[in-house]
C-alpha cells in the first residue's frame, strides 16, 4: 500500500480520495493509539517493560505508556493482584475513560496462577474485579506474546460498531459484592445470632434476586388490590 503522504505530495493526483465508513475510520484511529496504563505489580511487568525499550518497541503499535489512568485506553494487568491491591485496581479501571480495554497478562491474573490453590491473599483471576478483553497466558508471557495480544486487541477494536457501546452498561459490567462483616459478640444469645445470619444471607444475594422478589411483591400487591376491588364490587 502506498503511503498517504506520497499521494498528497504528488500534485498530479491532487483529487485522491479515501473511501471508508466513519465507523471504520474512528476504529482505525482508536486502534492506532491504544495507550496503556503503566501498571505492574510483579514479575510480568519486567516483561512488559522490555516492550517499552528499543528491542521490542511497542511505540510502533501506537502504544504510548501513560502514568495517569485518565489518559489511558488500555490496562495490562501485569502481575499478581492481591486482596490489598484489588480496590486500587478497580479504582484505576474506573478512572480510565471509555472506551477502555483490559488485557489480563500472565497466569496470576487469569486464575491466580501458582497462588490459586492455597493462598489467603491472591485474587483468583482479575476478571473477578474488572471485565477482561484478552487473556494472555504465560508465566510470565514473552514480549512477543504481549505483542500478539495487542494485535488481537487491535482486531477486536477494528470490528467494533457503534451498537457495541450500548451492549454493556458501566454499572453491570463487573460484579461487585460488598463484604458484610458482622462482629458477633459471644454474649449475644443464639436467637439474635441466627436472625442476623438469616438477614445477611438475604442481603448478600445478587441484585437479580432482589429484583425478582420486588416483582413478586408487586404482583402480590396488585392481586390484593384486585381482591379488594372485587370485594367492594360485591
Amino acid at each position, binding site marked *: 500500500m502506498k503511503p498517504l503522504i506520497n499521494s498528497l505530495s504528488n500534485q498530479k493526483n491532487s483529487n485522491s480520495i479515501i473511501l471508508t465508513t466513519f465507523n471504520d475510520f474512528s476504529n482505525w484511529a482508536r486502534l492506532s493509539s491504544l495507550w496503556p496504563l503503566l501498571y505492574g505489580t510483579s514479575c510480568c511487568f519486567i516483561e512488559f517493560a522490555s516492550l517499552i525499550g528499543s528491542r521490542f518497541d511497542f511505540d510502533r503499535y501506537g502504544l504510548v505508556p501513560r502514568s495517569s489512568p485518565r489518559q489511558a485506553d488500555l490496562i495490562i494487568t501485569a502481575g499478581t493482584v492481591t*486482596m*490489598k491491591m484489588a480496590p486500587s485496581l478497580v479504582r484505576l479501571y474506573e478512572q480510565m475513560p471509555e472506551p477502555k480495554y483490559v488485557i489480563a497478562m500472565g497466569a496470576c491474573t487469569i486464575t491466580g496462577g501458582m497462588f490459586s490453590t492455597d493462598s*489467603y491473599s491472591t485474587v*483468583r483471576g482479575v476478571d*473477578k474485579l474488572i471485565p477482561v478483553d484478552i487473556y494472555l497466558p504465560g508465566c510470565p508471557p514473552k514480549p512477543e506474546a504481549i505483542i500478539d495480544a495487542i494485535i488481537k486487541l487491535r482486531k477486536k477494536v477494528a470490528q467494533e460498531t457503534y451498537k457495541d457501546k450500548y451492549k454493556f452498561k458501566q454499572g453491570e459490567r463487573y*460484579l461487585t459484592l460488598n463484604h458484610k*462483616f458482622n462482629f458477633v459478640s459471644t454474649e449475644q444469645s443464639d436467637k439474635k445470632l441466627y436472625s442476623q445470619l438469616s438477614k445477611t444471607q438475604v442481603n448478600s444475594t445478587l441484585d437479580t434476586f432482589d429484583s425478582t422478589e420486588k416483582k413478586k411483591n408487586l404482583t402480590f400487591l396488585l392481586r390484593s388490590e384486585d381482591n379488594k376491588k372485587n370485594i367492594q364490587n360485591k
Partner: protein
Amino acid sequence: MLNTYTNNSTTTTKMQGRLSAWLAKHKLAHRPLGFDYQGVEILQIRSENWLSIAVALYVYGFNYLRSQCAYDVAPGGLLASVYHFTKIQDNADQPEEICIKIFVSRQRSKIPSVFWIWKSADFQERESYDMLGISYENHPRLKRILMPDTWIGWPLRKDYIVPDFYELQDAY
C-alpha cells in the same frame, strides 16, 4: 523441632556450644538446642528473659541482626520467633553466629521487641506480628505490614481458616 525442644538435660549438655557456656558462666537462663546444619549454635530463651539476654548478646559482640522470622510449631501448639545474629568486625573472615529461638503460647504470645537494640528488627517484627500475631512489646509501631489493616486473623498460623471471599474463590 519439637523433639529438640523437649530434650532433657542429659542430652543438652552434650550439645552445649561456646555461647551457651558463656551465658552459663554469667548465669543467664537459656537452653541449648544443638546446632543447625551449618554448625550454628541454637539457643532457646524464655520470653521473660529475652530482653536482658538480648542486651548481653549485644555486649558480647553480636552487633548485626541478620534475620528475624517466626513460625507456627504445630497446630494448636507454640509459636516460635527466631533470631539470627552475627558478630561483624573489620576484615571478618568467619564471623561468629548464633540462632535464638523463643517459644510462646498462641494465647499469650508476647515477646519483648529488640527494636531498641537492633533497629533492623523493625519491619521484621512487624511482619511476624502480621503473619502470626506475635505481639512484640515496646515495638514503636506494631501494625500490619503486608496484609490490609482491616484484615482479621493471622494468616500463617496453622489453624487459620481463609475467609470465603468472592475474590478468593478458585477459578475452577
